[in-house]
């Protein structure tokens, strides 16, 4: 059996990749995918702990996160389409109308 720290390390790496992608990338779809990556990094740590402590609640949480992520994907993609239709770009730096 793979020891817990390995899982946690992988989870941290996935999350860090997500954060980095979120901060660096300009394409709105890439940013969106980075968010999913962060979520899944967290999910991994949840199931790792659940397996370690033999507790079901971690796995339940993962399902919740997946449900929310699915809903978010639906809404998010719809917003992205709407943004693309009105602004004709997917670059977040160009979508800054709320700036003071």
């Amino acid at each position, binding site marked *: 059996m793979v020891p817990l720290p390995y899982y946690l390390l992988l989870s941290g790496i996935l999350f860090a990749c997500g*954060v980095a992608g979120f*901060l660096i990338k300009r394409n709105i779809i890439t940013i969106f995918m980075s968010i999913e990556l962060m979520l899944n990094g967290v999910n991994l740590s949840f199931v790792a702990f659940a397996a370690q402590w033999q507790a079901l609640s971690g796995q339940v949480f993962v399902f919740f996160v997946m449900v929310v992520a699915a809903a978010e994907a639906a809404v998010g993609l719809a917003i992205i389409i709407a943004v693309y239709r009105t602004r004709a770009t997917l670059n*977040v*730096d160009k*979508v*800054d*109308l*709320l*700036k*003071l």
Partner: protein
Amino acid sequence: MTPHLHLWLIPILPLIGATINGVFGKRFSRQTVTGVAWTFSGAAFAMALWVVSQFSSLVLPYTEQLAPWIQAGSFHAEFGFYLDQLTLIMLLIVTGVGFLIHIYSVGYMWEEGGFYRFFSYLNLFLFFMLTLILASNYLLMFIGWEGVGLASYLLIGFWFTKDSAASAGKKAFIVNRIGDFGFLLALFLIIQHFGTLDFTQVTSAVIPYGIEAGGGFLTAIAILLMVGACGKSAQIPLYVWLPDAMEGPTPVSALIHAATMVTAGVYMVSRSHAIFERAPIALTIVAIIGTLTAFFAATIGITQTDIKKVLAYSTVSQLGYMFMACGVAAFSAGIFHLMTHAFFKGLLFLAAGSVIHSVGGEQDMRKMGGLRKKIPWTFWTMTAATFAIAGIPGLSGFFSKDEILWRAYQANWIYWLIGVITAFITSFYMFRLWFMTFFGEYRGEAESGHGHGHDAHGSHGHGDGHGHGGIHESPKVMLIPLVILAFLSVFGGYVGVPAALGGSNHFEKFLAPVFESTLPNQSTTDHAGTPESERGDQITEAELQKYEHKAEKSTELIFTGISVLVGLLGLFLAWLLYYRRPQLPQEIALALGGLYRGVVNKYYVDEIYAAVFVKPLIGISRGVFWHGIDQHVIDATLDDSAAGAREVSGVVRRMQSGNLRSYAGWIAFGAAVVVVYMVWVGTR
């Protein structure tokens, strides 16, 4: 069995009238407004008469607790009403004279704008005045006290577009505020020492105390109450508002500034007689203030040429008499004069209003004259009132003034001397008014040329019904109240004919239970209710018992003779100066020079007050409170904090760049900080 009187209805009725007319009056016709005003003031009068009919079956003092009002610790005040002989007399004066003046006002105000407003205010005044006199504790009385001040302010400034009327209203309000301040302090002292404001409880709490030889808290309370009375009843030094109050419509001057409101101070002092009796210093102050006011106001009255101003100073002077009476602890004599004064001074004002009405708004007596034949009803009723106030024997003013002077003499002959001189001056200026207005030649402009509005408010003008030329008698609706009041002025005094003149002074006997002295260990005389200590100090007790009755009677007759004599002397002098030889007054005025100028200018009191109080106050307000505190502290605090917020946000708003990734960076940075902190906490 004591019937339940529902006293609370008496003040509430006029309030209903005031509300109806105030809220809906604008849409009503004049007839409807009149109907509402008459119904509710008449209903209050009818209630008062009903109370009279029930009076003999009451256990006095009758009290009625309507609802609790304030409860704070052991102190509590109720909405309660109180009825005794004194209240009953005030009740009859206020509702009776008030109702008559409501009738009269319809005629007087018919062509004025704001007809409904006038009657709404007038009813409101009745509500507050009735609250004042029916209250069962000082606090409820204070509500009425302030309320009549409000109504007075509203009615003085009734023609508010006229600058002088608006400022006269303000002046009355502000000067009264000074007096009210004293009244309030007195109430605080009463609460502090007795823990209650209820009349009955205060009186019973005061009874254990003896006479305060020096100053004490009772003296302080009494003096502060007197300060309040000075404001409301226009005594020195706070009398200055009353002459200016003549800017209001004449019925208002009659009701508020002659018959009822200004006598509230006398009522309040009489109501607190248990306190005053124990504070000889305060009583002396009351007597001195009253005497001085009576004298000085009368002297100013001689030189005034505005018919209403003469009457105003006369009112101040007569109120001085009432306080003189209170100051020598002859409270029932004061109340007696209050009643007769309400009759004849109310009548004088109403008749003066009728004169002003008939000559188309002229108030200057120099432009009147010879009106006797043209307005006979007004002339005869005014004659009755003039003779009454001048103290001609047989009329109401004679009895009441004589009673006061006699009591004043018993206390101190100086009061009496000044009182008699004042009586002479009173008689003189009243007959001066009488001769100037009704005798000689008409000195006004040509009879057809006066279409302008009365009370000198030119902008309002007169309607068609009144634009016709010529001096004319007033309508019946104005004359009927005049006749009723004339009747009362002539015969009203017979309820209190002093014993020395063959009467039995029913009035004083009626009031005796109220003013029964609360002081212990004193012999009562035939003048029940007068504290012994205040009168006849020079005679010992035994002598007093023995000789008093006989001696007093003959002395009283001599003094009565003197009063009558000075009254007739005033009449003669006025006849000489203003009828027989009309050029003489000017020569006398010239001969007197500076003295005359001083009196004409009312001793420059207004100017002195302006220089000593008003100007410095305005200066301090402008320099310190406005430019200093308001602009540099209050405004500056707000301005600076607003500027500070703007500067801080100028820096902080740079964070909102609109760049999504920079927001995300801040979030990640924040999350990282939290994680580091938690790790640090966890490993510690």
